C-alpha cells in the first residue's frame, strides 16, 4: 500500500472518532471534570498547608491524570464493539494496527489533551510556580499519549467482559507506573534545579516505544477478543 493511502486511512480513522467524540461531548467533559474533582479532593484530605501542597502538587495531578485516562478507556472500543463497527474494521483489508493507531490518537486528542490544558489551573490550586506549571504541561503532553497507547491494550483485552472497567484498572495501572514516576519526577527535578531534561528524554523514549509496539499488541488483543 502506498504511503499516501496509509495516511488517508489514518486521517479517516482519527476524524471519525473525533466526530463521534464531539457528538458526545458530555463524555469528554465528564473525564475532564473527574480529573478536576480528584485533584481538588487532595487539599481537602491533607490540609491546606502551602508547602505540603506545593511538594505534592505534581504527583497529585499526575495520579489524577492516570485515573482520568484509565476511566475514559471504556469508550475506546466498546461503542464500536456494540454496534458491530469493530467487526467490520477487523474484516477490512486495511492494516488493523493502523486503524487502532488512529483510534488511539483520537482518544488521546479527546481525553489526554484537555488534561494538559486544565493542568495550569490545577497547578495554581497547589501553588506551583510558573516554571513548574510549564514543565508539568510538557510532561503531560509527552506522557498522556503513552497512557492512551498502553491503555488501549488493556481496553482491547477486556472488551465485552463482565466487570471490564475494574479489570482494566488492574491490568493497566501497574504498567502506567514508569510514566507516573518520570512525569511527576520531572517537575520535582526542575524545581530542585537539576533540570527536567533527563526525565523528558525518558518520557520521549517511552512514547516512541509505545508508538512502535502498542498498536500491534492492541490489534492482536482485539483479534483475540473478537474471535
Amino acid at each position: 500500500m502506498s504511503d499516501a493511502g496509509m495516511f488517508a486511512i489514518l486521517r479517516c480513522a482519527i476524524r471519525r472518532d473525533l466526530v463521534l467524540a464531539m457528538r458526545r461531548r458530555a463524555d469528554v467533559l465528564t473525564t475532564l471534570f473527574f480529573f478536576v474533582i480528584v485533584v481538588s479532593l487532595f487539599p481537602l484530605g491533607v490540609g491546606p498547608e502551602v508547602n505540603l501542597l506545593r511538594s505534592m502538587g505534581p504527583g497529585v495531578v499526575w495520579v489524577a491524570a492516570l485515573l482520568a485516562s484509565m476511566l475514559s478507556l471504556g469508550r475506546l472500543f466498546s461503542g464500536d464493539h456494540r454496534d458491530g463497527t469493530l467487526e467490520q474494521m477487523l474484516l477490512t483489508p486495511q492494516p488493523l494496527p493502523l486503524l487502532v493507531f488512529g483510534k488511539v490518537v483520537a482518544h488521546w486528542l479527546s481525553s489526554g489533551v484537555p488534561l494538559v490544558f486544565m493542568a495550569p489551573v490545577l497547578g495554581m490550586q497547589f501553588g506551583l510556580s510558573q516554571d513548574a506549571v510549564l514543565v508539568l504541561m510538557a510532561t503531560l503532553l509527552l506522557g498522556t499519549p503513552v497512557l492512551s497507547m498502553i491503555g488501549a491494550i488493556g481496553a482491547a483485552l477486556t472488551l465485552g467482559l463482565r466487570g471490564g472497567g475494574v479489570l482494566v484498572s488492574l491490568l493497566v495501572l501497574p504498567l502506567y507506573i514508569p510514566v507516573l514516576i518520570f512525569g511527576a519526577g520531572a517537575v520535582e527535578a526542575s524545581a530542585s534545579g537539576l533540570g527536567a531534561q533527563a526525565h523528558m528524554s525518558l518520557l520521549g523514549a517511552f512514547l516512541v516505544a509505545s508508538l512502535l509496539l502498542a498498536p500491534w499488541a492492541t490489534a492482536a488483543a482485539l483479534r483475540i477478543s473478537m474471535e
Partner: protein
Amino acid sequence: MGHGRRIAYFDGIRWVTGLGNINWFKYASPVTFYGLAGRMIPWFSAAAAVLAVAGIYIGFFVAPTDFQQGEAYRIIFIHVPASWMSMFIYVVMAVWAGFGLVLNTRLSSMMASALAPTGAMFAFIALWTGALWGRPMWGAYWVWDARLTSELILLFLYIGFMALQAAIDDPRRADRAGAVIALVGVVNVPIIYFSVLWWNTLHQGSSISVTKAPAMAHIMLTGMLVMAIAAWMYTIAVVLVRVRCIILERERHSAWVADLVKEAK
C-alpha cells in the same frame, strides 16, 4: 501456522538438536502429559521436602550469627529464594504463554495459568518476610525502596494476569488474552524496575553478584542455594498438580477422562 508447516518446523528442531530419537512432542498432548505429570509429582515433592528440611537446618542451626544483623538476617533463607522465584516464574510464565500464543499448543497455556498463583504466592512471601526483616533493620515494616516497590508491582502484574483469566469464560480466549498481557508485562518489567530504581533507592546492595565474589559466608550461601533449589522443586511439584487439575477441568467431556473416573469408582 498450518499443521503441515508446524510439523516441518518441529522436525527441524529435532534435527538441529540431535534429539530426533525422542519424540518430545508426545508429551505436548494433555492426555499423555497428565500421566507423566502424575508420575513426576512424588519425586519433585520428595526432593522439595528433603531440600527444605536440609536448607532450614543449615540456615537456622549451622550458619553462624551475622555480626551486623544478628539473628534477624536468617530470614534471607526464605526471603531471597522467594523473591528469586517470584521474578523467575513471571518470565517462565510469559515464555509458556508466548509458546501457547504462537504455536497454539494448549498445554503451554495451561502451564502459564498453573504458574501464576505460585509466582504470586512467592511475591507475597518475599514482601511479607521483607517487611518482617525491615522492622528491626530499617525501623519500619515498609520503605519505598526500589526493590520493595518493584516486587509489589510484580505482585500486581500477577494479580492482573489471574484476574483477566478468571474474568473470561472461554478457555481459549482466556489463554490467549493472558498471553498478551503476560508478554506486555514481561517487556515492561525491566522498564518498571529501572524506573523505580532511579526513583529512589535505599535498599542494601545485592548480596550475591555474578561478577564479584559473594560478600557472605560460605555456609550462608550454601543454605540459601539449597533453599532456592527446594523452592524450585516445590514450584515444579505444585505446578504439575495444578496443571493436572486444569487438564481434567478442560477435558471433562472427553472419553479418556470418563474412563479415568470409571476406574476411580
